[in-house]
């Protein structure tokens, strides 16, 4: 027994020693920086191009490595707070706000002006999303303006013209009913749907409402048209069957590829339209030459679309923030944008690249000539970024809303109850956040005062000064409706 133990111990120690000696680290001489991002084949190409770009411009020799196994949000948080996160972190504007709160992001103000990747280099509608507490923290990699991508062949097959680019909710419903009727004619079970469900945010906004009030101090879903949006989606899903339910989706027999199963369904003819950004083209090209078109999300009076981005920020625990900044500079360069133009991975960060022939009418893909142009046009005209309140965590807002939405769709809550519950919970969260972060209180009080003034002006039908408004939606909405001070009716 004693011998056995000693032998085992010896084996284990020898094993450990060999594990220690064979550690794959410290192999290259040049500095290595890591980029935690999704598992997308396009990233490999982007890294290669980055290395080339460094050499061409005589920048320092850096090796950038991918870290695709930690892209999960909770893993990024756990690793971030313990000092072991990757140098460059993939973030959305809303998660960036949370990371800044935790102090995990390196402020880019200095580097951005020195190395020329400030917010003015990208789409105007996106700028606000890159800034938290008046400082820039991220720079976009792939900008997305999700819209309804139309497969014209599916409409042609049943003798209908493709939908208009801009349409109202009523038009959407009328066309959709006709579409579903014709497309499922003679089928035992409905397998064809008008469209993939669009996001709830643009629908709500098109009715002139937002998740939050003008100063982002209160969730206003309970007093907005949110319940109408939910009833509409419920009706479209379970009564008119324009949109597929969860069960319909689960029984659709597809292997989901990159970009999800919706694209496969769009290709197979099960969907007339898919709600997705320009990056859909990566997958769609694999299906062959589809005749594509793009429509806006139907509107209840105010046409709009949501602009978001996958962006890169620098980790405050990074050993080489100055080197990592070169990668952001690369993201702002024409070289990177051209890469995005060609591979179709959403919109390039640099808007100039979207006005080229290569972008608008790629010679290799004649079928796509109506596909690319609308995305940058939407981005410059009707796109509005997410409304992110500094007084509540964005992921809590999303989870709370999604919970109520799912409960409503499962028939557990009425739309009114769902709206009520969501608003109540989010407002509770705001109160709790204020209690936990007393430093926010002063700013919150200031905004609440502003909100009172705004409400007074609204009640009196007077225009509102732009500086009082923090919610990007209301800025755009009041501007369009002529309720902004100093801006005349267009």
């Amino acid at each position, binding site marked *: 027994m*004693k011998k056995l133990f000693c032998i085992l111990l010896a084996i*284990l120690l020898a094993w450990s020693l060999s594990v220690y000696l064979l550690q794959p680290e410290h192999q290259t001489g040049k500095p290595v920086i890591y980029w935690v991002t999704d*598992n997308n084949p396009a990233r490999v190409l982007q890294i290669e191009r980055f290395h080339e770009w460094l050499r061409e411009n005589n920048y320092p020799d850096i090796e950038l490595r991918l870290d695709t*196994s930690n892209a999960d949000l909770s893993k990024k948080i*756990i690793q971030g*707070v313990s*000092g072991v996160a990757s140098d460059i972190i993939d973030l959305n504007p809303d998660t960036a706000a949370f990371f800044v709160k935790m102090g995990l992001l390196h402020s880019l103000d200095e580097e951005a002006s020195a190395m020329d990747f400030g917010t003015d280099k990208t789409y105007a509608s996106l700028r606000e999303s890159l800034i938290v507490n008046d400082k820039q923290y991220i720079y976009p990699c792939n900008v997305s303006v999700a819209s309804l991508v139309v497969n014209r062949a599916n409409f042609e097959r049943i003798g209908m013209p493709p939908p208009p680019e801009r349409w109202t909710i009523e038009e959407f419903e009328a066309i959709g009913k006709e579409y579903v009727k014709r497309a499922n004619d003679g089928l035992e079970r409905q397998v064809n749907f008008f469209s993939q469900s669009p996001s709830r945010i643009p629908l709500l906004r098109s009715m002139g409402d937002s998740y939050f009030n003008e100063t982002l101090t209160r969730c206003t879903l309970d007093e907005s048209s949110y319940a109408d949006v939910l009833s509409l989606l419920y009706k479209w899903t379970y009564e008119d069957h324009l949109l597929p339910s969860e069960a319909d989706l689960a029984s659709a027999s597809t292997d989901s590829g990159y970009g999800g199963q919706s694209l496969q369904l769009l290709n197979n003819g099960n969907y007339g339209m898919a709600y997705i950004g320009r990056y859909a083209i990566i997958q769609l090209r694999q299906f062959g030459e589809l005749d594509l078109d793009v429509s806006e999300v139907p509107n209840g009076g105010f046409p709009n679309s949501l602009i978001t981005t996958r962006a890169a920020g620098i980790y405050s625990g990074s050993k080489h923030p100055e080197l990592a900044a070169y990668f952001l500079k690369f993201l702002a360069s024409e070289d990177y944008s051209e890469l995005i133009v060609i591979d179709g991975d959403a919109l390039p960060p640099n808007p100039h690249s979207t006005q080229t022939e290569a972008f608008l009418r790629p010679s290799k893909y004649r079928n796509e000539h109506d596909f690319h142009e609308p995305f940058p046009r939407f981005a410059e005209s009707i796109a509005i970024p997410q409304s992110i309140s500094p007084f509540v965590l964005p992921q809590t807002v999303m989870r709370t809303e999604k919970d109520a939405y799912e409960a409503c769709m499962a028939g557990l809550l009425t739309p009114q109850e769902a709206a009520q519950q969501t608003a109540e919970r989010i407002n509770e969260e705001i109160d709790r956040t204020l209690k936990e972060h007393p430093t926010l209180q002063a700013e919150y009080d200031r905004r609440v005062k502003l909100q009172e003034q705004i409400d007074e002006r609204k009640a009196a039908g007077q225009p509102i000064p732009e500086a009082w408004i923090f919610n990007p939606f209301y800025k755009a909405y009041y501007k369009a409706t002529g309720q902004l001070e100093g801006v005349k009716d267009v």
Partner: protein
Amino acid sequence: MGVLHLALAIVAMTLTLPFVWMVLTSLKPLAEVGLESWLPTQWHWSNYKEVFEVIPFATFYHNSLFVACWVTFLQVFTSSLAAFSFSRLDWPGRDRVFLLYLGTMMLPGLVMMIPNYQIMIKLNLVDSFPGLILPAAFSAFGTFLIRQFMLSIPKSLDEAAYLDGASSWQLFWHVILPLSRPGIVTLTIFTFMSNYNAFFWPLVMLKSESKYTLPIGLLFFDSSRGQSTHLLMAAVTMSVIPMIIVFVLLQKQFIRGIAAGAVKG
């Protein structure tokens, strides 16, 4: 008797069906995955090779074995020492300490996770093997199991050994430990299996792919290439093999160990 046989065979079949489906699916070509027929038309043994090509499966395998072996060794060793102290040595306050110690067995591991993580940050052990091994290596359960076993060994042996001039250390190594073998085997199996499958702690702790253990590797495989069901199933099948080996080799001793140890507690 015949009925019994049939009943046993039917139950065994129901329990193993998912397993059979897994193995058969792992041998299908991609195009046949999800079809109603369970049998592949072509047997793709190369799927197994492919798993090693698409993910660093060998590394995951190695890491899991490495961590599980260390934890098992440490736990068995320290638990036997502690169990010896609790069962064969006489010292003031022994039983009270043991009760307190045992009480922690019912603590949800969850409670300890967050602070343990803070400790690992402070010790700079996040994303390292020692960080995985250490918190798992000391358990009250192991001590309890082996103590039960040692209690069943007659006290007269101790007296005889002491009369022969043996020290307590010699008594431990040459008398008590060899006699507790079934208990030790049981603990070995329990510890090995649960640590080979450990999920929660490695999920929180690990960052580098090169340090991933099998469960984390499988999860990563599922989330990144979950559509390749056939490869996923091949990977899962392979991850199970060490467990089968351990169980088949040691099952007699295992059951004897449980019978003699835990149950009479």
